Structure formats: structure tokens, C-alpha cells
């Protein structure tokens, strides 16, 4: 007689695709083969977790089709099953997993679309915090601006792709024109994705604005972020990007480096 721990580990392995025959003697068949009964649980895990992935990665699913998606999701479920029962947290590694599959090499943009969907999902479920406004910065003396350190809004994410992933995302939402197309040669795209209020928003940044925003989100002072961006683009003007980031609600608070 197996201990409960042994039994549950063995059944977990079966549910994740392992050989069911080892457990067969533990299961009462009762008119069925024990493997048929075990198969119900394998299907539950595979199908329900694939559905959860399909809900988070609906654009990827639309791009590759249901059949292909279910096959890939099934592989992912077995390779990286969830460690938390909160399924809105499940599937962070799916984009990277897609990138490793030979079958998706012709769809080079697919992993980036998946990354975009993941951060959209993370922004959707992030904590509700009132964003910093320009009025909040009124007490800061202009000569101290360089020492400003911004704390990013909990929903803030930044993503860069060689492909126009926002357009791909847009034309694959429900209720969009089914004949709409995206020119994949439109070039790279840098986005900030965040949810300052009820709705998740995606805002395109310039390549240098993206470098600058990345610096700020990682805790650099305004002066440091400016200097780092100038290394790439010597005539970079930080004011427009900073104005955009503050107006969209990219930060929740600030401190001054003392």
C-alpha cells in the first residue's frame, strides 16, 4: 500500500503524461481498465490548463489556430506545470517556450506577441495604485530634477520587439476587421504597457525613449537615465518622453537622491 505522498506523486506524474501502468494495480477498474479511469485525470489537467493558457494567450491562439495551440500548450503544461493554484499567474514562461520549438521558427514574432500578452495579463491583475501626476512634482525645485528617482507604477511593463507587436495584437482582438493585415516589415516597436485605472493601455515609445524609460523604471535618477540615453542618442531630449510617462501614469511616487 503506497503512502499518500507516494500515491499523489505517482498520480501527478501520470496526469503530466507519464506511464499509467505503474499505478494500475492501485486503481479499482470496475468494468474499465484502470488506465481509462486515470486518463480522465490526465485529460482534466491537460485540457483545463491548456484552456487557462488559451485565455491568457488568446492572440497567440488565434495566430496559430486552436489545434496547434492545444498541442503546444499540452507540451508546455507537461514541461512547466503550475506551482500556484491562481491560474492568472500561470504561464509566464510560455513565450520563451514557444521560441524553443522548431515548429514556430517561421513565426519569429510569435514569442514577442506572447511576451506582450503576458505583460498585459500582469498589468491587468496588478495592484490598484493612484499614479503620480505632474502636480505631485510641484514641490521639487528645478535644480533638483536630476536627483529625482521614480517608483514605477505596479502595473508598468516595458517591451521591445523587432516586430510591430502592438498592431498584431490589435488586429487579433475580437470585433476587429477579419481581413485586417499587418506589415511585418514595419520595423521594431517599443511599448510601455500599464493599467493606471480600469483599462490596460499600450503606448508606443521612441527607441531612445524606451532606453530612458527602462533606466527610470530600474531606479536610475533622472540625471543618470538622461546620461545613459545620451550614450545611444547624443541629442536626446528627455522632456517629451518624461511628459508622456507621467501623463500615462507610469510612476506611483518619487524620491530625491540625497
Amino acid at each position: 500500500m503506497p503512502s499518500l505522498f507516494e500515491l499523489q506523486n505517482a498520480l501527478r506524474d501520470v496526469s503530466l503524461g507519464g506511464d499509467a501502468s505503474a499505478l494500475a494495480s492501485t486503481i479499482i477498474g470496475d468494468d474499465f481498465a484502470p488506465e481509462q479511469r486515470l486518463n480522465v485525470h490526465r485529460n482534466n489537467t491537460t485540457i483545463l490548463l491548456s484552456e487557462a493558457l488559451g485565455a491568457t494567450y488568446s492572440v497567440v491562439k488565434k495566430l496559430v489556430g486552436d489545434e496547434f495551440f492545444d498541442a503546444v500548450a499540452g507540451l508546455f503544461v507537461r514541461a512547466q506545470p503550475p506551482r500556484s493554484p491562481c491560474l492568472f499567474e500561470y504561464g509566464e514562461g510560455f513565450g520563451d517556450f514557444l521560441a524553443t520549438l522548431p515548429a514556430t521558427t517561421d513565426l519569429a514574432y510569435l514569442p514577442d506577441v506572447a511576451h506582450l500578452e503576458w505583460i498585459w495579463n500582469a498589468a491587468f491583475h496588478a495592484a490598484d495604485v493612484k499614479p503620480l501626476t505632474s502636480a505631485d512634482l510641484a514641490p521639487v525645485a528645478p535644480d533638483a530634477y536630476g536627483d529625482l528617482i521614480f517608483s514605477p507604477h505596479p502595473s508598468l511593463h516595458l517591451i521591445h520587439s523587432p516586430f510591430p507587436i502592438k498592431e498584431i495584437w490589435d488586429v487579433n482582438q475580437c470585433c476587429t476587421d477579419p481581413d485586417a493585415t499587418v506589415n511585418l516589415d514595419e520595423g521594431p516597436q517599443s511599448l510601455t504597457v500599464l493599467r493606471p485605472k480600469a483599462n490596460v493601455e499600450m503606448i508606443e515609445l521612441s527607441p531612445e525613449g524606451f532606453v530612458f524609460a527602462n533606466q527610470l523604471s530600474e531606479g536610475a535618477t533622472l540625471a543618470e537615465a538622461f546620461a545613459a540615453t545620451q550614450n545611444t542618442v547624443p541629442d536626446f531630449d528627455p522632456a517629451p518622453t518624461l511628459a508622456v510617462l507621467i501623463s500615462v501614469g507610469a510612476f506611483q511616487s518619487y524620491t530625491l537622491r540625497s
Partner: protein
Amino acid sequence: MTNLDHTAHRLASPISASPLPVRAGIGLKAQHYQEIFDTAPDIGWLEVHSENYMCAGGPTQTWLSAMRECFAISLHGVGLSLGSAGPLDSSHLKRLIDLERRVEPGQVSEHLSWSVADGVYLNDLIALPYTEESLEIFSTHVLQMQDALKRRVLIENPSSYLRYAHSVIPEPEFLLNVAQRSDCAVLLDVNNVFVSAMNHGFDPIAYLDQIPADLIGEVHLGGHSQVVFDDRVLRIDDHGSKVCDEVWALYERLIQRTGPKPTLIEWDSNIPELSVLLDEAAKADRILAHAASREEVHHAVAV
């Protein structure tokens, strides 16, 4: 989402936290948020899967707060995995406590099953072997859950697809033993009893009759499907269709014995229009009202 201010935090709701109204409720689904909010249908209460609302913030939480303003809520957990060997997931329990404090639910429930093995969540409610070892583990976990939440919880009988050769305790007896050891109450799922009875060849009436009325805090009704293996049928509890006639008959018989109990219409896959759920709830409400009127007659005769 419209009509809702995302910054709104729940004020003390005019709807009492406890207990659940003795009426039919429905499972709350995202597809129906707006319609329920706009039309305020006459339903007794709402139930949600706790895990779906354990996020840090965002619209799902805002909707739940808005619903709690108007309805009593039951928190139905699918992820604590009380039947797993090894300790309970303390971080998950903490999230449940936070949710419970925020929602002030009428009931908190979990399942007589397991879904986690060695840290992996299988997203499946799997039956336990009914042994002295698992009785001890399960009862201890229920006690820990209740201590953490500072409230009595309901434990739901599972749908099962397999039994273990080393199981020695009949399921209803196991459930009653858990209730006795941990002082929890029972969420009696009539569809689950029927599904398991058909899958294993036992009498569902005998099972239902073993559960004392005063132990039942809530009843579940849902639909199931059938899969055929070599001309033999296994019933699968997928909550994707209407409650079947046999289950309605079992429910009616149960309620005649126990008197009215808060009753949930569950529907989790192939989710239909809200009106379909409301029709099912109205059907349960009629059975509850009939039982209540019978109780009144009995009471009048006794007086």
C-alpha cells in the same frame, strides 16, 4: 468596463455577511458581471472561485466588490488542496485570509479532494484514498484552515472517477468523520453524488440519506457530461450543461428531508446566457419554497 470607478473600495455592505440566504444562488462568471450589475436580478446570492480573485488588484476585484454591495457572496476554493500529503501552502492560505477579510463572505468552502503533489498544481479535484492516514491528514488541514480563517468552513463531497484498492472507509463515512474531527460542516453536491454513484455503482439515495440535515450548510447543483469507453459510460463533472432530471429528483428528495438549504447552480464551462442560470435558480427556488411551506404546515399542526 463601464459604470464602475476602479478606485472604489467596498464600504460596509448593507447585505449581511452571514449566513447565506436560504435561497438559490448562482456561480458568478465574468461574462455576466455587467448584466448582473445593470439588471440586479432576483437571486439569493453569488458564489465565486476564491482563486480567481486573489490578484493584487484590477477589474476582477473591482467587480467582486461591486457585487458584494448587492449580494451575499460564498467563497468556494479550488486550490488549497486539503487532501495533499505534506503541509498546507501557507502563502496560499494567507491569500485566502486576505480575500475573506475583504469580501466578508457568507460561507467559505473547499473540497474533499487533492490537487497539489509536491508543489505542482494539477488544476483537478482528485479523490483521496479513504484510509486512516488520509483521514488524519485531511482533518488536520481542515482544522488549520478554520483556525487561520477563524470560522467554520464547508467541505464538499467530490465527483470521482476512480477508487483505490487500499481505500477502506466509505466516502460518506469519511466525510462525517472529517466533520466530527474538525467540526466543519458539509457542502453537499448532489450532482457529485450522482456522478460518483454512476461511475462506481452505488446508490446515491443511500449516500445522501447518511448526511445529517444540520451538518449541511450549502447544496450544489450542476450539470455533467458523459464519455463512452467501449460502450461503457463515465460521467464527467464538467459543469457545462443544465442539471439533469435524475439530479433534480435527488435534490427534491433531499430538500424534503432536510428542509430548505442555500443552493448553488454551478456552471463553469460552455457558459450560457445569464437567463439560463436564472431559470435553473428559479427552479431550485420553487423546490425550496415548496419545502418551506411544508415546514410551516408541519409547524402549525405541531402548535
